[in-house]
């Protein structure tokens, strides 16, 4: 199978990371430097999510109808 879509972090993972970063940022005890680092990370994740969403195309594959194994016959 082509590796490209698998290497890219999934939208869900990136979005979960983004939520985690926001949660961390809500912590008031955070040193400013750490907060700035988290902010940068959050912005990066947010842009990553956006670009995944915007460039997303339904990835459709089909199981082989006659084959009884569950291997994908096609993947794009």
């Amino acid at each position: 199978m082509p590796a490209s879509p698998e290497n890219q972090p999934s939208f869900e993972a990136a979005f979960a990371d983004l939520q985690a970063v926001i949660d961390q940022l809500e912590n008031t005890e955070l040193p400013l430097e750490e907060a700035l680092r988290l902010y940068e990370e959050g912005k990066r994740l947010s842009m990553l999510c956006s670009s995944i969403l915007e460039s997303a195309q339904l990835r459709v594959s089909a199981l082989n109808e006659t084959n009884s194994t569950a291997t994908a016959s096609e993947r794009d």
Partner: protein
Amino acid sequence: MVILTRMDAFDFNAALIFSVTSLNNYLRELLETDEVLQDLWVRGEISNFSQPRSGHLYFTLKDSEAQIRCVMWKNSALRLRFSPADGMQVEGHGAMSIYPAQGQVQLYLDALRPAGEGALYQEFLRLKARLEAEGLFDPEHKRPLPSLPRHIGVVTSPTGAALQDILQTLSRRLPILRVTIAPTPVQGAEAPPGIVAALRHLNQLEDLDLIILARGGGSIEDLWAFNDESVARAIYNSRVPVISGVGHETDFTIADFVADLRAPTPTGAAELATSITAQELSLSLRAASDQLDARLNELLSSARQSLALAQAELRRSSPRAFLQNALQRLDETQARLERLGHNQLEARNLRLASSVSRLNALSPQAVLRRGYAIITDQHSGVLISRASQTQPGQELLLRLQDGLIPAQVTAKPTGAE
């Protein structure tokens, strides 16, 4: 005239003579009060079918021996799930009555189905009752659907419109999805084992979040695979939640009852599968990004404020300020000191001057100059200020303003007291 007279006589003598209208009314009353004739199913073949603009259906039901006129009013005809045609074997439900204008006894149908459907339907009801009793429809068994699925399986015909509808809907609503199609016939004898196998294969995909089991619209016979027991059990046993989307608005199939969620159409199933759309994700992304910005601004402004406070604090406690304060205090003290020193000096000078003049006034010399003498004992130097201090023979020293005179006491002093 004679005839008329005879007719009149006949009319007159008869016990009961119906007009045609009253005859038809009487017939109608008979028909419409008969329980059997008012609620009956009839099986037969359609002939002379016609559907004029009014939308009502007119046809004859016949078998090899007989026929009867049938009417189906438009409101019932609209509910038909198939198109009746000449030669079709059907079962109709309705009530007998008479059309007085033509004296036509006919069956007024309110339901019509292809023949054999009734038996199928009974079978459907039996299976449904059995599976329901077994708990296959229990709400507790329904699994929650993932709010944001990543990988969806689709069990349907690879050539049907249902598949295109589903793919289009998924692509429009949530294009980050992965979709795996498990193609299977959805109609005919191969359909049930095909669907069961498709469900089994999809369940072997570990990351699959959801399965859509779908078929486009069709007659109830077309959908029969979705009333198959093995299909029902395969849905029930599916590890992955199943949404059914069998294209039939009015009827529920067994598959619909067992599925975790039921949609009326394949498109509806794809919509239910994507309860959160990419558009909504974009919105929450923007919200998250705004939240990030707001939080950063908050942190920065709070940091700025703390910094301003600390700087003010620092200025207050800096060595320079301390030094300046100390210098100022020193200056003030010195000035005060100078002021005080000056005053003190003045006062002392004044006091000194007055003391000197007083001293001068009190000086024995001044007294001596006025003619007094100071007498002391020549030997002890003790000042003699009283006569009683002397005795004859005692040597004294008289101090006058310009010198000393030695002297001797010659007699006992005489008291003046």
